[in-house]
Protein backbone atom coordinates (compact mmCIF):
# COMPACT_ATOMS: atom_id res chain seq x y z
CA UNK A 1 0.00 0.00 0.00
CA UNK A 2 1.29 3.46 -0.88
CA UNK A 3 1.98 5.77 2.02
CA UNK A 4 0.23 9.10 2.13
CA UNK A 5 3.15 11.06 0.63
CA UNK A 6 3.52 8.66 -2.29
CA UNK A 7 -0.21 8.74 -2.83
CA UNK A 8 -0.24 12.54 -2.78
CA UNK A 9 2.50 12.55 -5.44
CA UNK A 10 0.55 10.08 -7.53
CA UNK A 11 -2.56 12.20 -7.35
CA UNK A 12 -0.63 15.31 -8.37
CA UNK A 13 0.67 13.29 -11.33
CA UNK A 14 -2.85 12.16 -12.19
CA UNK A 15 -4.10 15.73 -12.06
CA UNK A 16 -1.40 16.78 -14.49
CA UNK A 17 -2.50 14.00 -16.86
CA UNK A 18 0.37 11.54 -16.34
CA UNK A 19 -0.82 8.12 -17.53
CA UNK A 20 1.85 6.30 -15.45
CA UNK A 21 0.37 7.77 -12.28
CA UNK A 22 -3.11 6.64 -13.28
CA UNK A 23 -1.67 3.22 -13.99
CA UNK A 24 -0.21 3.04 -10.49
CA UNK A 25 -3.49 4.10 -8.94
CA UNK A 26 -5.14 1.21 -10.81
CA UNK A 27 -2.51 -1.19 -9.43
CA UNK A 28 -3.11 0.02 -5.89
CA UNK A 29 -6.90 0.10 -5.84
CA UNK A 30 -8.15 -2.30 -8.52
CA UNK A 31 -8.25 -5.33 -6.25
CA UNK A 32 -10.19 -3.64 -3.46
CA UNK A 33 -12.61 -1.90 -5.79
CA UNK A 34 -13.18 -5.11 -7.72
CA UNK A 35 -13.88 -6.97 -4.47
CA UNK A 36 -16.34 -4.25 -3.50
CA UNK A 37 -18.23 -4.52 -6.80
CA UNK A 38 -18.10 -8.30 -6.85
CA UNK A 39 -19.48 -8.69 -3.35
CA UNK A 40 -22.31 -6.30 -4.19
CA UNK A 41 -23.25 -7.84 -7.54
CA UNK A 42 -22.05 -11.44 -7.33
CA UNK A 43 -21.22 -11.23 -11.03
CA UNK A 44 -17.76 -11.09 -12.54
CA UNK A 45 -18.71 -9.63 -15.91
CA UNK A 46 -20.69 -6.89 -14.27
CA UNK A 47 -17.85 -6.23 -11.82
CA UNK A 48 -15.47 -5.92 -14.78
CA UNK A 49 -17.76 -3.30 -16.32
CA UNK A 50 -18.21 -1.36 -13.11
CA UNK A 51 -14.48 -1.40 -12.39
CA UNK A 52 -13.73 -0.06 -15.89
CA UNK A 53 -16.33 2.62 -15.44
CA UNK A 54 -14.84 3.59 -12.08
CA UNK A 55 -11.35 4.15 -13.45
CA UNK A 56 -12.60 6.00 -16.51
CA UNK A 57 -14.53 8.23 -14.11
CA UNK A 58 -11.32 8.69 -12.17
CA UNK A 59 -9.70 10.24 -15.26
CA UNK A 60 -12.68 12.49 -15.82
CA UNK A 61 -13.19 13.57 -12.24
CA UNK A 62 -9.73 13.67 -10.71
CA UNK A 63 -9.74 17.47 -10.90
CA UNK A 64 -12.72 17.53 -8.53
CA UNK A 65 -10.72 15.75 -5.82
CA UNK A 66 -9.75 18.54 -3.45
CA UNK A 67 -7.80 16.67 -0.80
CA UNK A 68 -8.89 14.66 2.22
CA UNK A 69 -9.16 10.89 2.17
CA UNK A 70 -8.55 9.65 -1.37
CA UNK A 71 -10.06 6.27 -0.48
CA UNK A 72 -13.15 8.09 0.75
CA UNK A 73 -13.41 10.00 -2.51
CA UNK A 74 -12.72 6.95 -4.70
CA UNK A 75 -15.23 4.74 -2.91
CA UNK A 76 -17.82 7.48 -3.03
CA UNK A 77 -17.43 7.46 -6.82
CA UNK A 78 -17.59 3.64 -6.75
CA UNK A 79 -20.74 3.76 -4.64
CA UNK A 80 -22.35 6.26 -7.03
CA UNK A 81 -21.51 4.01 -9.98
CA UNK A 82 -23.08 1.04 -8.21
CA UNK A 83 -26.23 3.03 -7.43
CA UNK A 84 -26.43 4.22 -11.04
CA UNK A 85 -26.28 0.58 -12.07
CA UNK A 86 -29.07 -0.28 -9.62
CA UNK A 87 -31.23 2.53 -10.98
CA UNK A 88 -30.67 1.48 -14.59
CA UNK A 89 -31.52 -2.12 -13.63
CA UNK A 90 -34.67 -0.89 -11.95
CA UNK A 91 -35.63 1.05 -15.09
CA UNK A 92 -35.02 -2.02 -17.23
CA UNK A 93 -37.11 -4.09 -14.88
CA UNK A 94 -39.99 -1.66 -15.11
CA UNK A 95 -39.73 -1.68 -18.88
CA UNK A 96 -39.73 -5.43 -19.02
CA UNK A 97 -42.57 -5.83 -16.54
CA UNK A 98 -44.94 -5.42 -19.43
CA UNK A 99 -43.22 -8.19 -21.34
CA UNK A 100 -42.92 -11.89 -20.81
CA UNK A 101 -41.65 -13.19 -17.49
CA UNK A 102 -39.34 -15.56 -19.27
CA UNK A 103 -37.41 -12.74 -20.96
CA UNK A 104 -37.33 -10.82 -17.70
CA UNK A 105 -35.68 -13.63 -15.77
CA UNK A 106 -33.00 -13.98 -18.44
CA UNK A 107 -32.05 -10.33 -18.61
CA UNK A 108 -32.60 -8.90 -15.18
CA UNK A 109 -30.80 -11.42 -13.05
CA UNK A 110 -27.40 -11.89 -14.63
CA UNK A 111 -26.10 -13.43 -11.45
CA UNK A 112 -23.71 -15.95 -12.88
CA UNK A 113 -21.63 -15.71 -15.98
CA UNK A 114 -20.71 -18.94 -17.68
CA UNK A 115 -19.66 -21.64 -15.28
CA UNK A 116 -19.19 -19.24 -12.44
CA UNK A 117 -20.00 -20.63 -9.05
CA UNK A 118 -20.82 -18.32 -6.22
CA UNK A 119 -18.74 -18.92 -3.10
CA UNK A 120 -20.46 -19.60 0.21
CA UNK A 121 -19.88 -16.08 1.46
CA UNK A 122 -21.50 -14.61 -1.64
CA UNK A 123 -24.54 -16.83 -1.23
CA UNK A 124 -24.96 -15.79 2.38
CA UNK A 125 -24.42 -12.12 1.54
CA UNK A 126 -27.27 -12.28 -0.92
CA UNK A 127 -29.60 -13.22 1.91
CA UNK A 128 -28.90 -9.90 3.59
CA UNK A 129 -30.57 -6.61 2.77
CA UNK A 130 -28.75 -4.55 0.17
CA UNK A 131 -28.08 -1.55 2.42
CA UNK A 132 -26.39 -3.62 5.12
CA UNK A 133 -24.43 -5.57 2.54
CA UNK A 134 -23.23 -2.35 0.97
CA UNK A 135 -22.23 -0.94 4.35
CA UNK A 136 -20.23 -4.05 5.24
CA UNK A 137 -18.44 -4.00 1.90
CA UNK A 138 -17.76 -0.30 2.06
CA UNK A 139 -16.18 -0.69 5.49
CA UNK A 140 -14.18 -3.76 4.53
CA UNK A 141 -12.86 -2.69 1.13
CA UNK A 142 -12.52 1.06 1.51
CA UNK A 143 -10.82 0.71 4.91
CA UNK A 144 -12.44 3.96 5.92
CA UNK A 145 -13.14 4.87 9.54
CA UNK A 146 -16.69 4.78 10.90
CA UNK A 147 -16.62 8.56 11.08
CA UNK A 148 -15.84 8.83 7.36
CA UNK A 149 -18.39 6.18 6.41
CA UNK A 150 -21.08 7.88 8.49
CA UNK A 151 -20.27 11.17 6.78
CA UNK A 152 -20.38 9.57 3.36
CA UNK A 153 -23.75 7.99 4.09
CA UNK A 154 -25.07 11.17 5.71
CA UNK A 155 -26.14 9.39 8.85
CA UNK A 156 -25.15 9.63 12.54
CA UNK A 157 -22.12 7.55 13.49
CA UNK A 158 -24.19 5.61 16.04
CA UNK A 159 -26.51 4.46 13.24
CA UNK A 160 -23.56 3.31 11.12
CA UNK A 161 -22.04 1.45 14.04
CA UNK A 162 -25.30 -0.27 14.93
CA UNK A 163 -26.07 -1.28 11.34
CA UNK A 164 -22.61 -2.69 10.74
CA UNK A 165 -22.58 -4.52 14.03
CA UNK A 166 -25.97 -6.13 13.35
CA UNK A 167 -24.95 -6.95 9.78
CA UNK A 168 -21.67 -8.64 10.67
CA UNK A 169 -23.29 -10.52 13.51
CA UNK A 170 -25.93 -11.81 11.13
CA UNK A 171 -23.27 -12.76 8.60
CA UNK A 172 -21.48 -14.79 11.26
CA UNK A 173 -24.69 -16.60 12.05
CA UNK A 174 -25.34 -17.30 8.39
CA UNK A 175 -21.83 -18.58 7.82
CA UNK A 176 -21.71 -20.83 10.86
Amino acid at each position, binding site marked *: MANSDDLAQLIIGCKSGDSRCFSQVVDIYASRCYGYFYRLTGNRDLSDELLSELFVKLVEKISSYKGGSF*EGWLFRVASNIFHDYLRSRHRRKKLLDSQKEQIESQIIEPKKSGNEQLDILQMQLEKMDSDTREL*IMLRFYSELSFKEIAKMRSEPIGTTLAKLHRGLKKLRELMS
Partner: protein
Amino acid sequence: MNSRDSENLKDLFARFLSDEQAESSVEDIQKGEQILRENPAPEPNSMLLANIKAEMAMRLPSRRANIFSNTAYRIACAAATIMIISAIGIRLFDKTPVSTDIQYGSLIPQNVWDGVDITTDDAELADYAIKIEQIEQELRALQSGESAGNGESSLTELEMELVAINNDFWKE
Protein backbone atom coordinates in the same frame (compact mmCIF):
# COMPACT_ATOMS: atom_id res chain seq x y z
CA MET B 1 -1.65 4.18 8.07
CA ASN B 2 -5.26 4.82 7.11
CA SER B 3 -7.85 6.53 9.23
CA ARG B 4 -9.43 3.21 10.22
CA ASP B 5 -6.28 2.00 11.92
CA SER B 6 -6.22 5.01 14.18
CA GLU B 7 -9.77 4.70 15.44
CA ASN B 8 -10.48 2.95 18.68
CA LEU B 9 -13.56 0.83 18.13
CA LYS B 10 -14.10 0.13 21.80
CA ASP B 11 -14.13 3.85 22.65
CA LEU B 12 -16.47 4.45 19.77
CA PHE B 13 -18.97 1.83 20.94
CA ALA B 14 -18.55 2.92 24.55
CA ARG B 15 -20.13 6.25 23.58
CA PHE B 16 -23.41 4.41 22.99
CA LEU B 17 -23.15 1.17 24.99
CA SER B 18 -21.91 -0.08 28.35
CA ASP B 19 -18.29 -1.25 28.54
CA GLU B 20 -19.30 -4.88 28.43
CA GLN B 21 -21.59 -4.40 25.44
CA ALA B 22 -18.97 -2.32 23.69
CA GLU B 23 -16.40 -5.05 24.11
CA SER B 24 -18.79 -7.66 22.80
CA SER B 25 -19.70 -5.49 19.80
CA VAL B 26 -16.06 -4.97 18.89
CA GLU B 27 -15.56 -8.71 19.05
CA ASP B 28 -18.56 -9.29 16.76
CA ILE B 29 -17.17 -6.85 14.24
CA GLN B 30 -13.69 -8.32 14.33
CA LYS B 31 -15.02 -11.87 13.86
CA GLY B 32 -17.29 -10.76 11.05
CA GLU B 33 -14.42 -9.06 9.25
CA GLN B 34 -12.30 -12.15 9.80
CA ILE B 35 -14.90 -14.10 7.77
CA LEU B 36 -14.51 -11.61 4.94
CA ARG B 37 -10.73 -11.98 5.04
CA GLU B 38 -10.98 -15.76 5.00
CA ASN B 39 -13.26 -15.63 1.95
CA PRO B 40 -11.56 -13.23 -0.41
CA ALA B 41 -13.39 -11.99 -3.48
CA PRO B 42 -11.90 -12.97 -6.86
CA GLU B 43 -9.18 -10.71 -8.22
CA PRO B 44 -9.66 -8.76 -11.45
CA ASN B 45 -7.80 -10.49 -14.26
CA SER B 46 -4.67 -8.91 -15.70
CA MET B 47 -6.21 -8.53 -19.15
CA LEU B 48 -9.00 -6.43 -17.68
CA LEU B 49 -6.51 -4.21 -15.87
CA ALA B 50 -4.44 -3.78 -19.04
CA ASN B 51 -7.59 -2.77 -20.94
CA ILE B 52 -8.57 -0.33 -18.24
CA LYS B 53 -5.14 1.29 -18.25
CA ALA B 54 -5.22 1.53 -22.04
CA GLU B 55 -8.64 3.14 -21.97
CA MET B 56 -7.57 5.61 -19.32
CA ALA B 57 -4.49 6.56 -21.34
CA MET B 58 -6.65 6.94 -24.45
CA ARG B 59 -8.92 9.36 -22.66
CA LEU B 60 -6.08 11.50 -21.39
CA PRO B 61 -5.17 13.43 -24.58
CA SER B 62 -8.76 14.54 -25.11
CA ARG B 63 -8.86 15.64 -21.49
CA ARG B 64 -5.71 17.68 -22.03
CA ALA B 65 -7.20 19.21 -25.17
CA ASN B 66 -10.31 20.11 -23.21
CA ILE B 67 -8.23 21.69 -20.49
CA PHE B 68 -6.34 23.69 -23.13
CA SER B 69 -9.48 24.88 -24.89
CA ASN B 70 -11.13 25.72 -21.57
CA THR B 71 -8.08 27.74 -20.58
CA ALA B 72 -8.08 29.54 -23.93
CA TYR B 73 -11.78 30.39 -23.53
CA ARG B 74 -11.19 31.66 -20.02
CA ILE B 75 -8.30 33.86 -21.13
CA ALA B 76 -10.37 35.23 -24.04
CA CYS B 77 -13.28 35.98 -21.69
CA ALA B 78 -10.97 37.69 -19.20
CA ALA B 79 -9.37 39.78 -21.95
CA ALA B 80 -12.78 40.81 -23.31
CA THR B 81 -13.96 41.75 -19.82
CA ILE B 82 -10.83 43.84 -19.20
CA MET B 83 -11.31 45.64 -22.53
CA ILE B 84 -14.98 46.40 -21.82
CA ILE B 85 -14.23 47.61 -18.30
CA SER B 86 -11.35 49.78 -19.59
CA ALA B 87 -13.56 51.32 -22.27
CA ILE B 88 -16.28 52.10 -19.74
CA GLY B 89 -13.68 53.44 -17.29
CA ILE B 90 -12.16 55.76 -19.88
CA ARG B 91 -15.60 57.14 -20.72
CA LEU B 92 -16.53 57.64 -17.09
CA PHE B 93 -13.29 59.18 -15.88
CA ASP B 94 -12.06 61.07 -18.92
CA LYS B 95 -12.53 64.76 -17.97
CA THR B 96 -11.33 66.34 -21.23
CA PRO B 97 -14.11 68.59 -22.57
CA VAL B 98 -15.89 67.31 -25.57
CA SER B 99 -15.41 69.56 -28.60
CA THR B 100 -18.60 71.43 -29.44
CA ASP B 101 -17.46 72.77 -32.86
CA ILE B 102 -19.94 71.72 -35.44
CA GLN B 103 -18.36 70.03 -38.38
CA TYR B 104 -20.41 70.44 -41.48
CA GLY B 105 -20.34 67.78 -44.07
CA SER B 106 -20.67 68.38 -47.77
CA LEU B 107 -23.96 67.74 -49.57
CA ILE B 108 -21.98 66.30 -52.43
CA PRO B 109 -19.97 63.20 -51.77
CA GLN B 110 -16.27 63.90 -52.35
CA ASN B 111 -15.85 61.07 -54.80
CA VAL B 112 -18.52 62.71 -57.03
CA TRP B 113 -17.53 66.35 -56.77
CA ASP B 114 -13.93 67.40 -56.42
CA GLY B 115 -14.33 71.18 -55.97
CA VAL B 116 -11.69 73.68 -54.90
CA ASP B 117 -13.98 75.35 -52.35
CA ILE B 118 -16.59 72.84 -51.31
CA THR B 119 -18.43 75.29 -49.00
CA THR B 120 -19.06 77.80 -51.80
CA ASP B 121 -19.96 75.05 -54.20
CA ASP B 122 -22.52 73.76 -51.76
CA ALA B 123 -24.18 77.18 -51.41
CA GLU B 124 -24.37 77.66 -55.14
CA LEU B 125 -25.67 74.16 -55.63
CA ALA B 126 -28.40 74.77 -53.08
CA ASP B 127 -29.32 78.03 -54.84
CA TYR B 128 -29.49 76.32 -58.22
CA ALA B 129 -31.50 73.46 -56.79
CA ILE B 130 -34.10 75.92 -55.41
CA LYS B 131 -34.33 77.81 -58.72
CA ILE B 132 -34.70 74.57 -60.69
CA GLU B 133 -37.41 73.43 -58.34
CA GLN B 134 -39.30 76.73 -58.74
CA ILE B 135 -39.07 76.56 -62.51
CA GLU B 136 -40.21 72.95 -62.52
CA GLN B 137 -43.23 73.92 -60.40
CA GLU B 138 -44.10 76.76 -62.77
CA LEU B 139 -43.64 74.43 -65.72
CA ARG B 140 -45.98 71.87 -64.20
CA ALA B 141 -48.53 74.62 -63.48
CA LEU B 142 -48.40 75.86 -67.07
CA GLN B 143 -48.67 72.38 -68.50
CA SER B 144 -51.73 71.66 -66.40
CA GLY B 145 -53.29 75.02 -67.35
CA GLU B 146 -53.44 76.38 -63.81
CA SER B 147 -51.24 79.38 -64.55
CA ALA B 148 -52.76 82.52 -66.12
CA GLY B 149 -49.65 83.22 -68.25
CA ASN B 150 -49.31 83.56 -72.05
CA GLY B 151 -49.57 79.91 -72.76
CA GLU B 152 -46.93 78.50 -75.07
CA SER B 153 -44.59 81.50 -75.00
CA SER B 154 -44.39 81.39 -71.20
CA LEU B 155 -43.60 77.73 -71.37
CA THR B 156 -40.84 78.31 -73.88
CA GLU B 157 -39.53 81.16 -71.80
CA LEU B 158 -39.28 78.97 -68.75
CA GLU B 159 -37.65 76.19 -70.65
CA MET B 160 -35.08 78.66 -71.94
CA GLU B 161 -34.43 79.86 -68.42
CA LEU B 162 -33.97 76.31 -67.24
CA VAL B 163 -31.47 75.58 -69.99
CA ALA B 164 -29.59 78.78 -69.14
CA ILE B 165 -29.32 77.85 -65.47
CA ASN B 166 -28.17 74.39 -66.36
CA ASN B 167 -25.48 75.79 -68.64
CA ASP B 168 -24.31 78.30 -66.04
CA PHE B 169 -23.99 75.58 -63.46
CA TRP B 170 -21.81 73.34 -65.53
CA LYS B 171 -19.74 76.30 -66.79
CA GLU B 172 -18.32 76.98 -63.32
